[in-house]
């Protein structure tokens, strides 16, 4: 064993690590491929030019998504730490940006688990089509028992039980560790997800009306390319779907062997994510085409996204389609697989950061993070007001949490820590794709500007038109309040000193290729 390998083994034994590049890639794909790939991308593409949307989407992938993904990888892989530790090792002054990302992940975890719990319950509902003839009334009335917007303490057992099951499963996975928990989950769930979704797509393609749906999705509206909103939607979609900018890829990259081709791995992860989105688009719109034909409506009258697509449109399709129960189990099962691997990655950001900061064992950190997260999740999202709180927190944390933190992370790394050229050199040691000046310019200037534009656009929109029909106090507390709270908490936690055994200097670089020391 070489000296580098020895120190790497020690590091891996202390923090946990993936056993191979393949496991890391599967875990990273598991994080990137989430609910948004299935229920957001198809509608965003349809609404923003259809087939023509593919062009800005590819431009966004190449100029923002992949460069940002590689920056996250470089930061975690070079500095071998959770998000706060990696930022602190890049420059002590920017540690709080890492904690900002940790806070965002905690917020996401508590509500994301609820959606997975709904999908889990709907997987069972699919077998006997429990939602009956009116899936929308069933969702909000019978299942969620949603009352007026507000905060209620009235618990819905049908949500509480699957939510508790999701949290128990996640805590067990997290306690098992990086390889035996996160890695093993990805190794099992990602092939299952791809298999289940491929079967679903093939089934959907053979439904009557499928071609009508695909025509609606892919017919190009070239005039859309002249609208800035379409380009903003493409950059937003790429950004939100790749799991970049909120610490996940930083954390996962820190668990990978030092001599790993991170640029080649990043390309596989990024294109797997986009490839799955395309598959989802085909499957979803083939099914919507069937729904339109069966109900005698146009596709634009049935097209939807998010909760409406998953829990209203799909149950309607399942009611009408031959072998509908199979479609239901495959669709909601895919949501559960995709959601769980993403939830695991989100909560790992928090656990890893707490472990690094306070030098805790994995089990202790899992309990310290997981039990409060599960408690908050169960209290807020298993009640009759859960869906409203979820909708608000999701909207604001996505825009003024993830997006804002992502732009901040690029700016501080490029212009405060001036770390980008060093990160490029690190990635080039073993990378199969060379990161040159083009990458430095992209992540230092172009991508922050593009994402900054999307952020400002979102801010103006929310400032001018309050989100949804919610009371102002709910938007203030759960929306703006939660987005601001994570920033304040991040600054406070960053002031806590690191333990003496945690060096704040970046570990030594591995020897360049061909110059590895011999034992």
């Amino acid at each position, binding site marked *: 064993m070489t000296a580098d390998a020895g120190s790497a083994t020690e590091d*891996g034994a202390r923090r946990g690590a993936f056993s191979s590049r393949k496991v890391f890639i599967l875990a990273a794909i598991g994080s990137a491929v989430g609910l948004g790939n299935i229920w957001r991308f198809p509608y965003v593409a349809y609404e923003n030019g259809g087939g023509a949307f593919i062009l800005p989407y590819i431009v966004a992938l190449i100029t923002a998504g992949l460069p940002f993904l590689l920056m996250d990888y470089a930061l975690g892989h070079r500095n071998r730490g959770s998000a706060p530790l990696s930022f602190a090792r890049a420059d002590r002054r920017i540690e709080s940006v890492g904690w900002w990302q940790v806070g965002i992940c905690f917020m996401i975890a508590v509500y994301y688990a609820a959606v997975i719990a709904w999908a889990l319950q709907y997987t069972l509902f699919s077998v006997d089509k429990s939602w009956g003839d009116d899936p929308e009334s069933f969702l909000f009335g019978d299942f969620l028992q949603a009352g007026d917007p507000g905060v209620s303490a009235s618990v819905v057992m049908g949500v509480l039980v699957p939510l508790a099951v999701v949290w128990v499963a996640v805590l067990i996975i997290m306690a098992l560790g990086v390889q035996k928990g996160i890695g093993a989950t990805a190794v099992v769930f990602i092939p299952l997800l791809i298999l289940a979704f491929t079967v679903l797509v093939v089934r959907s393609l053979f439904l009557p009306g499928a071609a009508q749906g695909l025509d609606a999705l892919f017919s190009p509206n070239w005039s859309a390319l002249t609208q800035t909103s379409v380009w903003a939607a493409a950059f937003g979609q790429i950004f939100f779907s790749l799991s970049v900018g909120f610490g996940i890829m930083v954390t996962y990259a820190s668990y990978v062997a030092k001599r790993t081709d991170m640029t080649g791995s990043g390309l596989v992860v990024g294109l797997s994510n986009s490839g799955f989105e395309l598959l989802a688009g085909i499957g979803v719109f083939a099914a919507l085409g069937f729904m339109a034909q069966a109900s005698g409506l146009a596709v634009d009258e049935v097209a939807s996204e998010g909760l409406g697509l998953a829990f209203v449109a799909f149950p309607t399709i399942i009611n009408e389609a031959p072998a509908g129960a199979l479609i239901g189990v495959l669709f909601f099962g895919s949501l559960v697989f995709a959601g769980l691997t993403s939830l695991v990655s989100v909560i790992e950001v928090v656990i890893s950061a707490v472990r690094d900061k306070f030098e805790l064992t994995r089990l202790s950190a899992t309990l310290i993070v997981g039990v409060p997260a599960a408690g908050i999740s169960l209290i807020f999202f298993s009640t009759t007001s859960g869906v409203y709180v979820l909708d608000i927190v999701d909207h604001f944390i996505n825009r003024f949490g993830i997006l804002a933190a992502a732009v901040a992370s690029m700016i501080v790394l490029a212009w405060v820590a001036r770390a980008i050229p060093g990160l490029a050199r690190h990635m080039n040691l073993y990378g199969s794709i060379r990161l040159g000046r083009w990458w430095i310019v992209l992540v230092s200037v172009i991508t922050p500007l593009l994402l900054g534009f999307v952020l400002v656009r979102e801010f103006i929109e929310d400032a001018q038109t309050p989100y949804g029909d919610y009371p102002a106090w709910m938007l203030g507390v759960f929306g703006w309040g939660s987005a601001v709270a994570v920033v304040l908490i991040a600054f406070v936690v960053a002031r806590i000193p690191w333990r003496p055994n945690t060096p704040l200097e970046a570990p030594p670089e591995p020897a360049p290729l061909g110059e590895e020391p011999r034992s």
Partner: protein
Amino acid sequence: MSTGAILMMLFAMLVLWGGLGLAIYNLTRRSKAPEEHYYRDL
């Protein structure tokens, strides 16, 4: 499906799925880094 829709669907498949195939080929055939298997979990 219209011709335009078919062409755009094929274009998207070619770029995204073809690109993924090339990326996997690059990683498995051209990667300079050795595959290391020495990490242990806690």
